[in-house]
């Protein structure tokens, strides 16, 4: 081990970050100031590492802050948002990491979006330009991101389509002529052109039927297996179970548990009562809803935000549990034996 390596390893340990993380998020918070002095705490103190070849699924109820977190990573939040914390995106081949939260718009637009972070959007039909063919949109993206010469562009666009399993025979179609699954692949092909090491997939399977969900999820997994880091934001637990290596559960803007997927979905199960409740709501499990509804992000309680709905809550829960050892709960359940 060279001195330089040792130094790097030490630095990584002192910062508590995985050395090979493609994305390393710490204390990420997003607040929205509204008129009348109200504040919406959309994301609070989120932290996780994501390595190459790994898929982390971020799951939670709608409105829990998952998509705001993704927007924060891409610098796509509206003007009244205030962010804090760090989100280090590893640099290409030894170059310095970029803090996505501190980077200015020019850096994000010219070096990050599409090039180092690819976004697979929620509704591909709305993401694609309706008046142009898929081929023309792919070629435009190739030109903008890689500056490939005109003659090579056609080939590069076809290659990108091939990587996303988009059939070449459909390249000259317009978005409205595509099925939901093909539109999703076209959007994925666009996200892959810049060869970004990090892919953000924001609810990529919403509205697709089960066969298409499985196929879309498997294709995303294939891109992780090619060495990309994949952050899958979803409320579809079945899709997460299919492809994730780890699962991060978000509740009321906070990550409350991060667990290996095999334990989370396996017989041991998650440890946070909210995560257990989410799983128990599945139709192939107890099919029982969690009582009550999540709190308003503009009026979060002092203590644990889940306590009012939690079967295990005690007085302890009026203070907020720290997030330690991948869990934020005063009464974690022991893994089922």
């Amino acid at each position: 081990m060279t001195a330089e390596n040792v130094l790097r390893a030490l630095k990584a340990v002192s910062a508590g970050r995985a050395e090979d993380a493609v994305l390393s998020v710490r204390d990420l918070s997003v607040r929205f100031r509204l008129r009348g002095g109200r504040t919406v705490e959309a994301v609070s103190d989120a932290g996780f590492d994501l390595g190459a070849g790994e898929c982390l699924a971020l799951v939670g109820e709608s409105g829990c802050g998952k998509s705001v977190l993704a927007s924060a990573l891409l610098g796509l939040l509206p003007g009244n948002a205030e962010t804090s914390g760090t989100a280090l995106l590893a640099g290409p081949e030894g170059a310095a990491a970029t803090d996505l939260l501190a980077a200015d718009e020019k850096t994000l637009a010219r070096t990050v979006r599409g090039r180092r972070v690819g976004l697979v959007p929620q509704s591909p039909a709305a993401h694609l330009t309706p008046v142009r063919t898929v081929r023309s949109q792919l070629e435009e993206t190739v030109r903008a991101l890689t500056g490939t010469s005109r003659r090579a562009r056609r080939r590069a666009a076809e290659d990108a389509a091939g990587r996303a399993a988009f059939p070449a025979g459909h390249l000259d179609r317009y978005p409205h002529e595509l099925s939901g699954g093909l539109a999703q692949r076209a959007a994925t092909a666009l996200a892959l052109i810049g060869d970004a090491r990090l892919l953000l997939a924001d609810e990529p399977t919403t509205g697709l039927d089960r066969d298409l969900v499985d196929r879309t999820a498997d294709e995303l997994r294939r891109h992780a297996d090619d060495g990309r880091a994949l952050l899958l934001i979803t409320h579809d637990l079945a899709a997460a179970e299919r492809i994730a290596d780890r699962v991060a559960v978000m509740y009321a803007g906070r990550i409350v548990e991060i667990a290996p997927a095999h334990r989370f979905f396996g017989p041991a199960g998650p440890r946070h009562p909210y995560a257990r409740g989410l799983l128990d709501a599945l139709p192939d499990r107890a099919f029982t809803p969690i009582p009550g509804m999540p709190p308003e992000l503009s009026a979060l309680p002092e203590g644990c935000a889940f306590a009012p709905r939690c079967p295990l809550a005690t007085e302890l829960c009026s203070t907020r549990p720290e997030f330690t050892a991948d869990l934020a709960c005063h009464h974690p359940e022991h893994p089922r034996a």
Partner: protein
Amino acid sequence: MLELDTVTAGYDRRTPVFRGASLTVAPGESVGLLGPSGCGKSTLARVAALLHRPDAGRLVLDGTEVTAWRHRAPRELRTAVGVVFQQPRTAADPRLTLADLLVEPLRATGRRAEAAARLAELAPAVGLTPDLLGRRPHEVSDGQLQRACLGRALALRPRWLVCDEMTAMLDASTTAALVAAVETYREETGASLLAVGHDRLLLRRWCDRTVEWQDCLPAEERP
């Protein structure tokens, strides 16, 4: 009792979405209709909800044939059916508060006087708090808005419910909560249900029986 007998429907007479579909839902029964996206099951749901007139075939609701209408089905039949759609954002008037949304059907049928009492029953049944009832659609989540849309479908105490992908946009817990609300209503009133969707696990768990889309079609029309 709902009977669809060799129904053909679509948006253009020359190219119907489906031909000759048949399906029966017995009184008090719940039937899940399963099919991939784009197969025509939502059009069938609209026919079953009396929102779309079939081009051919018979639709019989509680012994009355209701195929002979022109622009709208007769009111006494329409109000016997409650419908919940997939996308609450497009199904809810953005200008109404959730409370107004819930009792809109009472107002539209001249039963405004009953609105307050019915609201007091409906809101807890679908899990909406007074705070949420005062808000408009852009101030609530998809799940909360879908709760209001379900409440609206139940407002006139329909004998017959059609849920077209009611939970496709929702997380597991909200899905289970909405299904529980539908089932509580059906236990109280004996209403029948047609739930249309693609989630096999969900519909098998929810409904008395499930029907595959291709089994509704005559052999020569199957995909």
